[in-house]
């Protein structure tokens, strides 16, 4: 999931849950049934989970564009053969 997808997923989750909560309360209160309210809300939570939790393709529409790899020949690695053993030796003697 890319950055835009994460933002979209969080927004979708909040809007859907609040929307389902409001509609569940309105339906439950108007029908006079507490159980109906809970069922509507439970359905809403299940649907929200299904939409926002899996990594759906529409969360991956803005892939990050990385820089082109820089040629290694232009910037050769620093030589590490010579200083490495000289560093190790004093540390060993220090431990003893």
């Amino acid at each position, binding site marked *: *999931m890319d950055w835009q997808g*994460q*933002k979209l*997923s*969080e927004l979708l*989750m*909040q809007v859907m*849950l*609040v929307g389902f*909560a409001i509609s*569940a*309360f309105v339906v*439950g*209160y108007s*029908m*006079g*049934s*507490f159980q109906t*309210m809970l069922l509507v*809300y439970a359905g809403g*939570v299940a649907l*929200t*989970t299904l939409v*926002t*939790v*899996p*990594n759906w393709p529409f969360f991956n529409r803005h892939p990050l564009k990385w820089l082109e790899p820089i040629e290694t020949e232009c910037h050769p690695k620093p030589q590490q053969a010579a200083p490495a053993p000289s560093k190790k030796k004093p540390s060993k003697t220090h431990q003893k």
Partner: protein
Amino acid sequence: MHTFWYRANAVLTFAVTILAVICGMASLSDNFNFPSPHAHVQVLNINWFQKQPNGNDEVSLTLNISADLQSMFTWNTKQVFVFLAAEYESPQNSLNQVSLWDGIIPSKEHAKFSIHTTNKYRFVDQGNNLRGKAFNLTLHWHVMPKTGKMFADKIVMTGYRLPEDYR
């Protein structure tokens, strides 16, 4: 929101928080209900009235309890507990409350009732003050909600009197 389980956790916690909020709103909606219950109790008979060996007065009554408690029920009501108490004053206690009958009303359909019964719990005084005693019959109730605050109230019915002699 970068992994599956992070998003699952976010959905769960936010959903439970909102559930608590709507339960709170359901509880608050009970405050817009103004019940107008009716109750009427008749003492049909004094079955017996005697002094126990330990000196306490005990009386057995036959009662007819009729009540309409339907207006107490809202969408957030689980059940209503009602009890009928005899209330009177005696030299030791400024208020005696003796529970004579109780019941649990599970739904609005059962909230209008008329019951012919002897007292379910024994009507015993602390002492021997019951002869000729005027007393009140009070119907107390507790409205038990599915979520939130419990409401309690009562109806006081006056003008009952016990006989002057044991029988």
